């Protein structure tokens, strides 16, 4: 029972991610890739994403401290960051990335910095949510993780 309940909760949690715009379709693609051979695929990928992107965030932070800003470089970093975020379906983070790049193109330092702060916030929020999600999924039982539970 508890398990079922947990699973139900998990499903709800998952659904909220989509409803609230934290995740998009791409996440489902990842879920579909998960199978018996890779039962924790999604979690692995997300973990990898966070690890790799934290490096990028650091680089961008440093670059934003320069004066004047090197928009080209910033844009490059952001392009990479956006690519990763897109691949796991981090919708809000991706939106911030796009915004950031717009400001870069416009040469708007203020806009860039502001957007980046926002981006980091979204990034952190998503990270927390997903960590909770995976933890619960593990508890609920490997076969019943979000995958396949398409709503």
């Amino acid at each position: 029972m508890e398990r079922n309940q947990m699973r139900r909760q998990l499903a709800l949690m998952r659904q909220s991610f989509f409803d609230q715009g934290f995740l998009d379709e791409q996440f489902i693609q990842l879920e579909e890739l998960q199978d018996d051979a890779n039962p924790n695929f999604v979690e692995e990928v997300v973990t990898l994403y966070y690890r790799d992107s934290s490096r990028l965030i650091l680089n961008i932070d440093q670059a934003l401290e320069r004066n004047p800003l090197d928009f080209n470089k910033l844009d490059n970093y952001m392009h990479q960051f956006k690519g990763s975020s897109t691949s796991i379906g981090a919708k809000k983070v991706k939106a911030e990335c796009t915004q950031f790049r717009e400001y870069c193109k416009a040469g708007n330092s203020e806009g860039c910095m502001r957007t980046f702060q926002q981006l980091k916030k979204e990034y952190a929020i998503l990270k927390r949510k997903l960590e909770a999600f995976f933890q619960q999924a593990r508890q609920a039982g490997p076969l019943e993780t979000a995958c396949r539970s398409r709503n």
Partner: protein
Amino acid sequence: MNQSNCKGSMSTASSSTNWKANDVVPDQFPAGLRVLVVDDDPTCLVILEKMLRTCLYEVTKCNRAEVALSMLRENKNGFDIVISDVHMPDMDGFKLLEHIGLEMDLPVIMMSADDGKQVVMKGVTHGACDYLIKPVRIEALKNIWQHVVRKKKNEWKDLEQSGSVEEGDRQPKLSEDVDYSSSANEGNWKNSKKRKDEEEETEERDDTSTLKKPRVVWSVELHQQFVAAVNQLGIDKAVPKKILELMNVPGLTRENVASHLQKYRLYLRRLSGVSQHQGMNNSFMSPQDATFGAMSSLNGLDLQTLSVTGQLPAQSLATLQAAGLGRSTTKSGIPMPLVDQRNLFSFENPKLRFGEGQQQQMSSNKPMNLLHGIPTTMEPKQLASLHQSAQSIGSMNMQVNTHGGQGSSLLMQMAQPQSRGQILNESTSSHGPRLPSSIGQPIMTNGIAGGVIGRNGIGDNSRGTGYNQVPPSSSMLSFPMNHTTELAGNSFPLGSSPGISNATSKGPFQEEGNSEMKGSAGFISSYDIFNDLNQHQHKSHDWELQNVGLHFDASQNANPIQGNLDVSPSVLVHQGYSSSQRSGQNRNASAVGRAMFSGVECVEQGNMQNFSPHLNNLLVDNSIRVKAETIPDANSQTTLFTEHFGQDDLMSALLKQQQGGIGTAETDFDLDGYSMDNIPV
């Protein structure tokens, strides 16, 4: 297919090992497709890998382009397809794409989060066979196997037709390589641009694809049979159907004959129209005038070609022509199938195209192009006679200059005094692969026009005797004349250098008034190929090939200018020009070329009257040799040209010469026929 030809040959999956493009694909296919995925983003890489595995492909992932390249190099046949990201820190994705296309000729799919039109366009022009927008969905990956099949199919076809491996086919990208278009457009046939030249690439590929059609390898014998049939029927009455009947060769289709005839006609026209070097194209066309006059700068030729190909405004061409030869620029509608090829030569000699195509970038002016130029150098009169049916095989391909220039520019190197077969320099070696394929094929059909024009050769020669030939292939022409053109890329002058041949032949011939040229015209085309090949290979030989075809001096300067042409002019055509590179050699080349032409002429149309018997012999001899030597790949090409000459003697002589003279065209050429594989990346 596997074939040996394609590097990428892939034997997909275990079961597929040799499935030919047009054959049945192994049952398991596409399972087991060996994919190499390159992306610096680890997250994406892992996701892609998983997706591909789900599609049952064999995946190898790599996060650095350099590593990927070395993996590919180490194991050339280890992968079937490559998927690469555009933005990577250590190497630009497009650059990797080019490298792969050049070296391995594998289909490459680009991906990026960037979906801007420019970027996608860049992918297309660089030869990517597909472009995926990130995030990539698994559905998009499920179908990537089609690119593998398609490529193989094309390669196989090319092989079949040209007998040479066409690496470049590549993909739509392939091709690339030839920078015809670009050069043509710019008026400078130098195809030094490599694949980078987007334009070229696009065109190249286009050409290739357009040209793809089952090709028949026109061996010397076959060509001779063809010419005999044509002569028997009378050039006016020679219709493909009848020719086919007369030839009575099993497996030969009317279509094959028709396209060959077209080329032959161009060749003849070119021979007669050689006189105009500038207008090379025109000159070829009008047999009567063959005023080779000074080929003056290939540019003229180029123009023709260009114009013909539609790239240059007709006017300019006309001007060129007028300037050059004062011939009637009849651009007689050179059929130039080559036009497709982007060949600059487009000018009339479809034949030339062949040469060029075949040669594909003769980076070095391989003597191959000898024939290319042949047609051109012929003096007006001669051309007229040659005209008879000789399709001006663009010949002259003197390709001479294979500079490393990218083949695409069909430089009509012929321009140089010796109508060097224009070497279609496929632009950029990168295109090499591409071109070859395209060229190879079309050669017969398109005569890779001009592209091949050995730029190199021609450029230089111009100094000398004026190219007369400014091969119709215009593209080529420009080269020789200027000599400078790097003929890089040796555009395949093979055969295609019809222009060159014209151009080149003109040069030297004009002085000699060789009627011989006509004969050589025929050769030229064939040599062009060689030239191209050579050119492709030898940069230094730029001129070699050019003259080869063309200079058949009646006197037969057998001595290969470059030393290659020991054989009578035919071979030398290329050699003559090979004055390697433009300098100095030109003179020789021209002489040789002249000899060649004369030889050629004689053989060809029977005009040989001028030729000394010796020459004929040489030619005959050459022809044989040529074949042998011409690079294995080129073989197909050379044969094509040799065929043109129809004149048994001529061809053989030329061939032989080429082979012998060229001093191993084979080595030079490496080209597989058309493939410019050798183009170093």
